């Protein structure tokens, strides 16, 4: 099992577009992906958009990413990277 600690940096947090990107990325891996809010302990399946959205993780929230499976290392790294980069969406207009 791998785990990474990462803080959400983009202004809008895990909104629909960001969550969609995250879930798309997570589902590319064979490993299971679990996200947990460090502050509340609430966790969600990283491959479930409804679960990820329900985390309601705003800017500044720290998440713990736990992956387990054959590609757990790469999965944890890439997902953490995506979050750290603010989902590459600094041009986000915040509509969605």
């Amino acid at each position, binding site marked *: 099992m791998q785990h990474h600690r990462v803080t959400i940096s983009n202004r809008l947090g895990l909104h629909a577009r960001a969550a969609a990107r995250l879930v798309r990325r997570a589902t590319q891996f064979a490993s299971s992906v679990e996200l947990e809010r460090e502050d509340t302990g609430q966790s969600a399946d990283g491959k*479930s958009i409804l679960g990820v959205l329900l985390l309601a993780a705003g800017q500044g929230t720290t998440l713990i990413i736990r992956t387990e499976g054959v590609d757990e290392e790469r999965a944890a790294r890439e997902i953490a990277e995506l979050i750290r980069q603010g989902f590459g969406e600094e041009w986000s207009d915040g509509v969605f």
Partner: protein
Amino acid sequence: MGSSSFSRSRDTVLRGLAVSPGIGVGRALRLDERGRQQFYFIGISAAQVRGEIRRLHQALAQARTQLQETKVRVALELGYDHSYILDAHLLMLEDENLVGQLEHEIRTRRVNAEWAVRDVTDRVMAAYKHVGDPYLRERASDIEDVATRLMTVLSGQAKFDPSKLEQNVIIVSQDILPSTVAELDFNCVRGFVTDGGGMTSHSAIIARALKIPAVLGLHDVTRRVRTGDAVVVDGAAGEAILRPTKPVLRVYLAKREDEAARRARRIPHHEQPAETLDGVRIRLRANVELVPEIDSLPLFGAEGIGLYRSEFMFLHRLPELPSEEEQYELYSKLARMTGDAGASIRVFDLGGDKLTLPGFEAEQNPALGLRAVRLSLKVEPIFRTQLRAILRANRHGRLRVVLPLVSTIDELRRAKRIIEEVKHEMADAEVEHNAALPVGVMIEVPAAALMADLFAAEADFLSVGTNDLIQYLLAVDRTNENVSHLYQPLHPAVLRSIAHLVRVAEAARVPLELCGEMAADPLQAIALVGLGIKTLSLVPAAIPLVKNAIRSIEMARVRSLMSEAMKLASSKEVEELLASEMPRQAPEFFAALAIQP
């Protein structure tokens, strides 16, 4: 209560409001509604579970294909970043958690895929509504969107069509919405049972109009019955018998035969006039809301139509409005069917508790809000279209228009001015029409009742709408079960208002009619006749009974009885007086009253 609410025992008897008589026997069909779209609960057998899950997956796949196509189009037309919301929707359809819950629901609760989608997405949305972040709270609408898409796809598979029922059913629902009624296959509907609704609710009016046995106000019948359960409705006793055993079922089937035979005996007088023993002629007209009812009018001996509730045309199709042509066809039919007796068309009585037009928001106090003539005067194009259709159809008979909920003389004047303008426009454009169109005022607001002499001077006739007049006079919402006992048609204030209107109309020599539920109850109808009302408009099916009541009384005696009644202090005292006197005055008809408690 708790556990017994879900009991599956046989012969469970529930008691509610007896709003429409008759015995109905059939299989329960549970309907539920959210917004305008309807979701049907269908219980499935263990053997059907796999097939239903396959249906769900086909629907998911089809919905995904739709979304992918849309996503590509959005990306091309609006740019790639805008297509992400659709990506979120796609991911929802692929969400294994959600799909797992849907399958679980179908498998363990044995429900159809539609119902599973509704239940599961309702739960998910409820979770979102608790999130503190307002942006994320809004995501509930994305889930709703996805759920609606799935439901639409599922229904596209033509699994359930309420207009094509295969067996006799008893409709089980929270309420009977007019829009639901419009879709149902009436050859198979044998009864209605509902959780809510009062004696004069729309549900009750509809059931009576269609002569379908109904028991309303059963509180939790929708939770006690599953689709497919056998149900007996005893509309006269106000009882619903769930899952009857064979012996009980036999009793009701025999009772149903008896009733049918008795009803067949009662109708034959339809060609005789409604005339009292001392020769006073009363005119009985029909209240009509659904088109199929029109054909049955001659059978019941109606003398024309006293109230055509034209807004019923809208019911199953809002937000689309009926075109002038469609209205013309329908009004022409009314005109031709009623001939010289004529038909009164009440202009669209929309808004309020009835129907909301698109673009108008729900109001906090709809009974006192923007409705009826207030709405017609505000949305003039709709009013003008209706008037044009009426004026054109008037060539085929004798139509009248009635303005609902008038409270100020200005409303009558404005409406009349618009009617004149429409006539001129039609004359200028050489559109064939008949300009001889009497304009009446519905007296439903106490202010209009008090000012009736002034309305009588400017209107061609007055029409008392007792349902609303009682509601506004006594400040009682007739559908609110907490106060519905205060909805008293025989309240002396109601009787005095009607007596006042009779005096005013006679003095002004203006025709006065009365329509409303009161007119369909033989005892109350006699009370109205005793107050001096000469034209009653009522549900067609009640006409033979009321006619028999009228043929059994003497006008002079009923008149003096009612002048006694008006001096009494309460509705109860009036009822007691009538219940003790009428069996004496008209033993043949009212004997049954004497033995009732």
